[in-house]
């Protein structure tokens, strides 16, 4: 197991944090992650996070659900065991639409949750390391990975403090 070391800049105001992010990035520092108690508008853009590709997965999951629903109904009601229901043809598409709709939604919703868990690496029994517990309460925590020998700790600390961090801490995490 290798240990990773992080420098944590603790902020107590989201506006200060939002202004600090571009300055820290402009200084050539790579921000590992920012932990906040609530979502902050514009923080994704400030951090340069690319848009999630989850909607693309959603579209294809929806297509799978639709295809499955249509296959299920056409095969069972039209091919495998045809029955006359309400005097309608065996394959009566309008009657299949509610089920097709529900299964499309079902596949999309559950598939997206699973996809999200997988791409986020949240498997069962995964232990999440919390950088600073106060980031679930009233503090905003910016984590920067320390590269042994490369990172100038004093300079980084000064950079964070000059941009409004009230504390600068270090933390080791088992990776």
């Amino acid at each position, binding site marked *: 197991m290798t240990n990773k070391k992080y420098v944590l800049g603790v902020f107590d105001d989201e506006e200060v944090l939002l202004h600090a992010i571009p300055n820290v990035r402009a200084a050539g520092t790579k921000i590992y992650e920012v932990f906040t108690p609530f979502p902050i508008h*514009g923080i994704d853009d400030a951090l340069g996070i690319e848009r999630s590709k989850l*909607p693309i997965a959603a*579209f294809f999951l929806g297509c799978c659900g639709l295809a499955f629903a249509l296959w299920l109904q056409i095969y069972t009601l039209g091919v495998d065991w045809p029955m006359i229901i*309400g005097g*309608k043809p065996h394959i009566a598409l*309008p*009657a299949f639409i509610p089920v097709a709709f529900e299964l499309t939604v079902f596949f999309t919703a559950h598939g997206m949750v699973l996809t999200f868990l997988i791409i986020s690496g949240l498997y069962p029994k995964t232990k999440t390391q919390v950088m600073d517990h106060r980031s679930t309460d009233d503090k905003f925590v910016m984590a920067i990975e320390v590269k042994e020998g490369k990172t100038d700790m004093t300079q980084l600390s000064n950079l964070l403090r000059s941009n409004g961090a009230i504390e600068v801490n270090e933390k080791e995490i088992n990776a």
Partner: protein
Amino acid sequence: MIAEERLIIPKKTSNRFLMMIGLGLVLLVLGIILMMTAGPAHHDAHGAAATGHHAVTWYERLMSNLWLNSVYFTGIAVVGLFFTTVQYVAYAGWSVLIKRVLEALAYFLPVGGVIMILVFLLPIIFTGHNPLFHWTDHSLYEVDNANYDPIIAGKAGFLNLPFYTIRMVAYFALWIFFAWWLRKQSVAEDLNGGLSYYDKSIRISAMFLVVFGVTSSLSAWDWVLSIDTHWFSTMFGWYVFASWFISGLAATTLTVILLKQAGYMKMVNANHLHDLGKFVFAFSIFWTYIWFSQFMLIWYANMPEEVGYFTERLGGYGGHYTWIFFTNLVVNFAFPFLVLMTRDAKRQMIMLKIVCIVILFGHWLDFYLMIMPGTLRGESGFGLIELGTALTFLGLFLVRFTKGLTSASLVPVNHPFLEESIHHHV
């Protein structure tokens, strides 16, 4: 302090609107003359298809078109008012920058009201009954008459001339009154500022929503459902409302984009368009949902008194309306659904613009499909009369709409949520 922004319509553009009306009227007259001269031959050609019905005259076709366009454009106008009030009641901030477009839509209401009341009443005054509405024929209610229709006679308590006229006048009176009242607050707020106008607007809006909840359904029954007098559908009020609402949203979005491209509304950005795009996307689906709910239950139950409505439109009259029936679904559901699905499509003006134009045409077609089979049977068409009437109405609508847009600042400068709208971010 944010500066006012006045829209100036160049003389050339306002002349173009008047030319649109003029050209529409010329085409309309031309269409009528063509139909009068070609009348008998037309009858022979379609005699077999229209068994049991006399041939449609230019007069009936003109009436149907007048009604179709007035229902459609009045709907867009009242949706402008409806959407404004929804924004007030929801304490919405994002929509403040586009609010003046919504308010201006309602400027068509008085014109629509006058035309609709005249189109309904004039034929009754001169000929005794209105060709659009079968139930206005008084012989249907006379027990000894050969035309006696017990089903329609049973509806006489609701469908009778005095009550119908009172209702129609009441809808317009209420809608115009609320539009005027709300607009008055909005313009006074620009001049004087303060929160009192905003608070009052919320109270007016809440009242209007109650009124509109009732009148939107009632007007849909009166104006559209009563054309097919025997038929009934409990979904119909919602169905017409959904069609109006999506048309109104498309008209609003299109106007915002056109104004932006003309250099106005600079503070409206991709975030506002994104929200409008989401509304257009969502309410296309909402319309489809209502459409399908109405269709599927009737199709599945297959009861003679209900299913006639759809057999007329789907395969009836030698398949006259079948293509419109399916085009309706493709244009108003599949197209906006697939095109507006991505985030980028909703944030870029070009895609949104195309979709809005398609939807505006699509819902005109939707109303065509609601009104024409009941009035013209299998003898409707797309000719000079349709084109002329639609152009005339569009011209009239644009004249009133631009009047509304120019008569106040495009930016409601003293709206309490203006800052929030300017910094809107999704």
